[in-house]
């Protein structure tokens, strides 16, 4: 039964790499939007507030843009 539970859970799970990539895309769109609106590069806090996450989380998610979190993903997606 433990294995079945584990299987069910895995089946419904979202990998961190994918979730970060989605957040990173939202950050990039918000950044472009705010850059136009403000006529300057937005501050970390402005992005964070607009997306309702902490500045530290903005930094973390942005990293997903630079490199795939795993080789697996580069190859298979």
């Amino acid at each position, binding site marked *: 039964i433990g294995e079945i539970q584990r299987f069910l859970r*895995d089946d419904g*799970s*979202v*990998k*961190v*790499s994918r979730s970060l990539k989605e957040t990173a895309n939202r950050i990039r769109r918000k950044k472009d939007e705010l850059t136009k609106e403000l006529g300057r590069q937005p501050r970390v806090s402005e992005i964070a507030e607009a997306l309702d996450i902490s*500045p530290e*989380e903005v930094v973390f998610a942005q990293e997903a843009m630079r490199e795939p979190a795993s080789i*697996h993903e580069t190859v298979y997606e």
Partner: protein
Amino acid sequence: MTFHNKMELRFKAKSENEAFARVTVASFVSQLDPDLEQLTEIKTVVSEAVTNAIIHGYEENEEGWVFLSAEINDNEVTIIIRDEGQGIKDIEQARQPLFTTKPEMERSGMGFTIMENFMDHVEVTSEEGKGTTVKLVKKLITNPNQALCN
């Protein structure tokens, strides 16, 4: 053992550093590409333990250092959070759900209970006047295909 990595960190006992500590551990652990739920669990327990060190251990005296280490051995993560603050008188009592010595701060008394729920192993050692160490261990499901074969 095929994969090993380790980091050790210390930072000032400022409430600003709680989010910093949480993201630092998350970014270290994300090397294993766990599922989102597990990463959220880890971030939550780091938050609880670091907050305890800052507000209970040092009572927000910013001169204090909070020590944090994270180690990966294959798919197992060990996180140690330590302070050199005032320590805990009665650990068993402190670990009870809803027990708190700071009810006035709207503390829920659920920090240790959350750690126990989200981690596979929680070890607390403490000495009054010397400080507190919390060791947290969790096995991550890092490859869903592998789980299918078990």
